[in-house]
């Protein structure tokens, strides 16, 4: 017996080995050619609070979305058991540390009182004492779950008889127990384990030896005592090479490949990791030959981040800055300056749960309206959103091309869900990549930076022979300040007409993508990370006889108005449903503004957790039965 896919949830205290567990497992699975999507949920505290990895592993495809219940819950601590016992499907496997059997719910200091009360109430209703052993007994006795009880300290003691564990690496050994148990249940072989561990610990031979032993020791025990109930089919994905990457990594790689030369940032979740990744490649070498460098500049705040990027751009560098909501709030004045002065600039914007500090380490899509309307005055901007890791790769390069071709700020919208989820993906198709730096002049003869020859005047770099003036004030063709009303109209129009030009030049079908066809029974409309869960839910419902389609909105400015209007218009209005991670269903407002079509049915979620297939399916059914608004809430 083997399975096509497995859903697992691994939980433990933040900063104590869970991430290592996920990385080793993902690499081992990638080595065997499986598709993996793993979301990481964590508190904004530095250490000790409950975090978990929720993953879907497939032998047939690269997963696009996540769903509950899961087949395996692996608990590094008792908090995970209490928090996630109902996420486990019937007959699923709970892996836990049996040395915590006597631990009570009330003694878990790291758990929020609100959640503790909720779980206490739930256990009371189930007639279960709020203690690990009682809960485990309940799960086992009802046949709800198979219990994999591992005495973590005893395993570590056995390990100690053979090796000298390094105290400074203590948590690693705990994570290897969990990796081992999962490898046993999925029947991941020793070679793949060795690959996963070696990749994680890069040349630290002792650590690799220790952890490979521990993983295999536990995996063998599991195979012997529980079999491998979720032994995966051989992978049918035909990828020769795979990347195991987070969304942050994908965007960073894309920027490097796409010719980025200057990136500024001020550290902020969930954007920083992208800049950290690029920093590692500040000196670019190919086969030992230097091919240049990328300046990655950590500024004192986001105001300096955007203004320094503007400065770098004016000298001719291909530039970007990366941030999230609170950082973008500080960038707004700079954004307006760039828009007015026609400076090519990419702002990679990772949305998180706002407003204010909000839910710093959770996801959201509540900043769409903000990115579209931020700053005083009017100026053209491109707002582009990516729906998955692969889209994010190509879009990050395209964003830099657009910025330079049209000489304006491009806001590339991503979210925490994408930023912090691991995925296995194939190597991008480099033949699809091009670099467009737009019109640049070297010659300085009577150079007019804002020459009236159409919406785009060739740009010259500071430091070239050309002379130009940048003030932030309204200006004439050279850049000199003018308040002349006729010049004002001409220059204003010149800037704003870029939107018409872009609208003409960029294919609407690239800016909004329809998955499915016009004969569908209903149409979901969404954007960003909603894409995967929308498509998967539609596929699931199709197997239940309900045929759906998904309209994926990618570019919000300029908006592909007539194309979107024609698609939405071909569905009955009570069959069109917005799916978004915000309260207002913000993309619906933009659709209404641009097309006059009001979509009044919506499924929204704003808990900061991803939308899961299981809940979206229920939501779609409710809307089709007549509800106007469904608010989703699944997930701890």
């Amino acid at each position, binding site marked *: 017996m083997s399975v096509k896919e497995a859903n697992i949830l691994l939980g433990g*205290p*933040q*900063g*104590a*080995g*869970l*991430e*290592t567990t996920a990385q080793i497992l993902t690499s081992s699975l990638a080595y065997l050619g499986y598709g993996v999507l793993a979301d990481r949920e*964590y*508190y*904004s*505290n*530095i*250490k*000790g609070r409950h975090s978990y990895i929720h993953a879907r592993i497939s032998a047939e495809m690269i997963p696009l979305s996540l769903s509950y219940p899961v087949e395996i819950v692996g608990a590094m601590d*008792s908090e995970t058991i209490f928090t996630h016992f109902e996420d486990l499907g019937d007959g699923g496997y709970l892996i836990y540390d049996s*040395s*915590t*059997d*006597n*631990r*009570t719910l009330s*003694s*878990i*200091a*790291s758990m929020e009182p609100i959640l503790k009360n909720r779980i206490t109430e739930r256990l009371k209703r189930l007639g279960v004492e709020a203690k690990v052993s009682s809960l485990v007994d309940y799960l086992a006795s009802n046949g709800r779950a198979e219990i994999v009880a591992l005495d*973590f*300290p*005893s395993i*570590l*003691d056995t390990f*100690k008889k053979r090796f*000298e*564990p*390094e*105290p*400074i*690496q*203590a*948590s*690693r050994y*705990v994570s290897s127990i969990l990796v081992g148990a999962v490898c046993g249940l999925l029947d991941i072989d020793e070679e793949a384990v060795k690959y996963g561990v070696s990749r994680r610990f890069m040349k630290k031979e002792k650590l690799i030896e220790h952890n490979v032993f521990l993983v295999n020791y536990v995996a063998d025990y599991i195979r012997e005592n529980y079999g491998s109930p979720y032994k995966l089919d051989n992978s049918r994905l035909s990828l020769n090479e795979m990347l195991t990457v987070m969304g942050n990594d994908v965007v960073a790689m894309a920027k490097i490949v796409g010719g980025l030369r200057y990136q500024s940032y001020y*550290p*902020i*979740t*969930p954007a*920083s*990791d992208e800049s950290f990744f690029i920093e590692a490649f500040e000196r670019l070498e190919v086969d030992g030959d230097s091919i240049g460098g990328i300046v990655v500049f950590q500024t004192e705040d986001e105001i300096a981040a955007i203004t320094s990027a503007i400065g770098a751009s004016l000298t001719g560098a291909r530039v970007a800055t990366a941030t999230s909501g609170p950082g973008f709030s500080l960038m707004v004045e700079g954004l307006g300056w760039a828009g007015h002065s026609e400076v090519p600039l990419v702002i990679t914007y990772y949305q998180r749960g706002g407003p204010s*500090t909000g839910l*710093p*380490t959770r996801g959201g899509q509540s900043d769409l309206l903000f990115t579209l309307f931020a700053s005083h005055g009017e100026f053209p901007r491109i707002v582009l959103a990516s729906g998955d890791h692969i889209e994010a790769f190509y879009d990050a390069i395209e964003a830099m091309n657009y910025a330079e071709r049209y000489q304006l700020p491009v806001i590339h919208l991503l979210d925490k869900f994408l930023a*912090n989820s691991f995925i296995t993906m194939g190597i991008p198709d480099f033949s699809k990549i091009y670099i467009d730096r737009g019109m640049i002049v070297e010659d300085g003869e009577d150079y007019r930076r804002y020459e009236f020859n159409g919406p785009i005047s060739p740009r010259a770099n500071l430091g070239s022979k050309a002379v130009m003036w940048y003030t932030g004030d309204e200006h004439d063709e050279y850049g000199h300040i003018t308040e002349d009303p006729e010049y004002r109209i001409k220059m204003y129009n010149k800037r704003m007409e870029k939107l018409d030009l872009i609208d003409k030049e960029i294919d609407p079908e690239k800016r909004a993508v329809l998955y499915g066809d016009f004969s569908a029974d209903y149409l979901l409309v969404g954007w960003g990370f909603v894409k995967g869960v929308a498509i998967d839910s539609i596929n699931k419902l199709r197997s239940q006889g309900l045929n759906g389609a998904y309209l994926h909105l990618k570019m919000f400015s300029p908006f592909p108005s007539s194309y979107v209007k024609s698609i939405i218009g071909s569905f009955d209005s009570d069959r069109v449903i917005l799916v978004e991670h915000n309260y207002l269903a913000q993309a619906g407002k933009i659709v209404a503004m641009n097309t006059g079509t009001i979509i009044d049915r919506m499924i929204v979620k704003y808990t900061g957790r991803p939308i899961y297939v299981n809940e979206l399916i229920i939501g779609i059914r409710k809307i089709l039965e007549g509800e106007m608004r469904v608010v989703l809430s699944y997930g701890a």
Partner: protein
Amino acid sequence: MEYVHNGGDTCIDCRYIELHDIYRYMGYCEVKYELMMVYRTTCNHFSPIDRGELWETLETGGWLYCIDCGEVIFFTDELKLHLDHRVRNKLFSDIIATEESPAAD
């Protein structure tokens, strides 16, 4: 008491043990320089923590930590609430958190 205690003197009550800050079944032995499974092991260096010393330790060190409650103790009034608990003035952190914790602000 959340972990199995075999009875008798085990490392958990030894003054030379720095308990792991997250996985409290592990501790670092200052005498043997080893990682110990503190509820299961003991050795001839065992020397129990004197509860009476805690008041002075709090005074000089400024903080104590109640393992049972997962709480930091700064004041003697607070210490009074944990007198029957396992209270310590040293913990050890491994290097993993520095690698795994996201910069979250």
